[in-house]
């Protein structure tokens, strides 16, 4: 179902000229202002099948376990893998990322994930976003604790932004985060001729949200966000360098993050979700269900990188998913919930063009029960290196309580 939205209406109406004066558009600052990277955290919800994303074509066990949905070895033929290093290949739908790989700004980690063995989406996502695998005793998320432990003096409502209709659990914490479904829709509704009425209504409403009560604080945050977007309003947004974001919720979310990052509204972290990875049946191989969502991911990342251009030196994008999927394909042409998985890292501070992590192998004796890719790198080790080196927050004990990362993988340079 593709509902008729305000946004699609404006797009079909030709944008620009018909927009009311109070419609939010962001003014762009010329240069990035922070010394820290902006973190863009993309959560692939549903348990992405990492074995068909960063494909271990050099492991014979892969083809034995994936007789129908396996990605063919790189051969140049359509539908074959895109070679990375002779052992790993990208799914062909990720071909747009090869350029970023060659440029040295994109890296992958494999056989990574949360050490907790749950195969429940709910628990696995919850643990991963809390950053405390196996424990739900700490109510905050890892990004929330990062923001709470680094004193940037930044009080912008856009310091932490969760794209979507609900706020990502990783953002929960002492610093209020703004949930934003879309910039274009973030204002109180009404006609241009009613601008004065809307302003009067808004101040009447604000007077009712004046206490320190939880809901009132959410209301105050919302008013601040409306004001910040209205204050920065000018001109309509055009992605740069020919960047073409996919025309999907994910593409729109990345467009909005790019817009906020460029406008220097104090953005430090943004969370974006992409669903559709729970491929129990008819997953497909080089084409099909998973290929479609991979193409969306690749198009989004490539567009974001092109659009942000020089600013990517101060941006780190990281992808994660709650768990990988079973090594052996099932009888329905899909894969069931597994364990070890991949992560992508994209940014100017990333030591790219490398697949990090020890490869545990796919032979029967090398698998984690009941037939899953083993985890050799705790995902917190990857994130700790980013938090430390790119976000310049050394308080890793606050961000990941009870976890001491082993030696870093060396995937990020010190900012």
């Amino acid at each position: 179902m593709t509902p008729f939205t305000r946004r699609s209406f404006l797009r079909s109406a030709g944008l620009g000229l018909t927009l009311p004066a109070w419609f939010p558009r962001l003014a762009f600052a010329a240069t990035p202002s922070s010394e820290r990277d902006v973190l863009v955290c993309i959560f692939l919800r549903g348990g992405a099948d990492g074995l068909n994303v960063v494909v271990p074509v050099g492991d014979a066990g892969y083809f034995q376990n994936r007789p129908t949905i396996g990605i063919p070895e790189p051969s140049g033929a359509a539908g074959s893998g895109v070679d990375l290093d002779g052992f790993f290949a990208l799914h062909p739908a990720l071909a747009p990322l090869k350029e970023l790989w060659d440029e040295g700004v994109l890296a992958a980690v494999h056989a990574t994930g949360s050490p907790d063995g749950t195969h429940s989406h709910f628990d696995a996502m919850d643990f991963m976003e809390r950053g405390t695998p196996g424990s739900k005793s700490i109510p905050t998320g890892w990004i929330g604790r990062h923001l709470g432990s680094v004193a940037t003096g930044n009080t912008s409502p856009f310091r932490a932004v969760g794209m979507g209709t609900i706020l990502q659990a990783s953002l929960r914490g002492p610093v209020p985060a703004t949930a934003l479904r879309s910039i274009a829709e973030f204002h109180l509704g009404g006609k241009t001729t009613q601008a004065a009425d809307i302003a009067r209504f808004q101040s009447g409403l604000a007077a009712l949200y004046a206490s320190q009560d939880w809901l009132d604080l959410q209301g105050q945050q919302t008013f601040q966000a409306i004001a910040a977007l209205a204050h920065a309003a000018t001109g309509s947004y055009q992605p740069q360098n020919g960047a073409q974001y996919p025309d999907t919720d994910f593409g729109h979310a990345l467009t909005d993050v790019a817009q906020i990052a460029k406008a220097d509204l104090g953005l430090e972290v943004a969370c974006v979700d992409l669903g559709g990875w729970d491929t129990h049946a008819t997953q497909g191989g080089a084409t099909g269900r998973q290929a479609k969502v991979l193409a969306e991911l690749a198009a989004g990342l490539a567009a974001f990188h092109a659009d942000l251009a020089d600013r990517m030196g101060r941006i780190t994008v990281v992808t994660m998913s709650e768990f990988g999927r079973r090594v052996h394909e099932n009888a329905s042409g899909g894969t069931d919930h597994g364990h070890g998985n991949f992560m992508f890292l994209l940014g100017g501070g990333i030591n790219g063009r490398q697949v990090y992590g020890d490869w545990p192998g796919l032979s029967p004796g090398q698998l984690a029960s009941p037939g899953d890719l083993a985890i050799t790198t705790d995902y917190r080790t990857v994130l700790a290196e980013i938090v430390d080196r790119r976000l310049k927050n050394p308080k890793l004990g606050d961000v990941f309580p009870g976890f001491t990362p082993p030696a870093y993988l060396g995937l990020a340079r010190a900012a």
Partner: protein
Amino acid sequence: MTAAGAKALLNTLRLQGQLPFDWHPPNGYPDANAAWGNTNGLLNRWNFGLALGGNHIAGVTTDVDALTPGLKNPTATTLTDALGKRLLARGLTSADRGRVIQYVADGRPANAPIPATKIKTSVAGAIALLLDSPYFQWR
């Protein structure tokens, strides 16, 4: 309500992330206030209150007269009290009641009858403000 109205209401649910059977991750809709009580949800609920009060949802008609039975020549005060009783089913604090009355009065005396030309917008504004207030949002 017409078919177009139903479509508009479904779109409202979509904007709030509450469209039935549309939760992509397989873990089910969250049931914690921290997930829903956020800027996006609040803004969209506010806008829904504005649209409903102002009868701006195509295909959906709010029978505002039915909300204030027997109210003749309303003033900002009597209108606020009548709508507050009907919509909130509980009292406003006296400070908040004063704030709503002040908004509805729009600079006019609070106990003077609202001019006929202003009745429609006053009622729409009062409904929207009460629906968008924390009182209704907590319900």
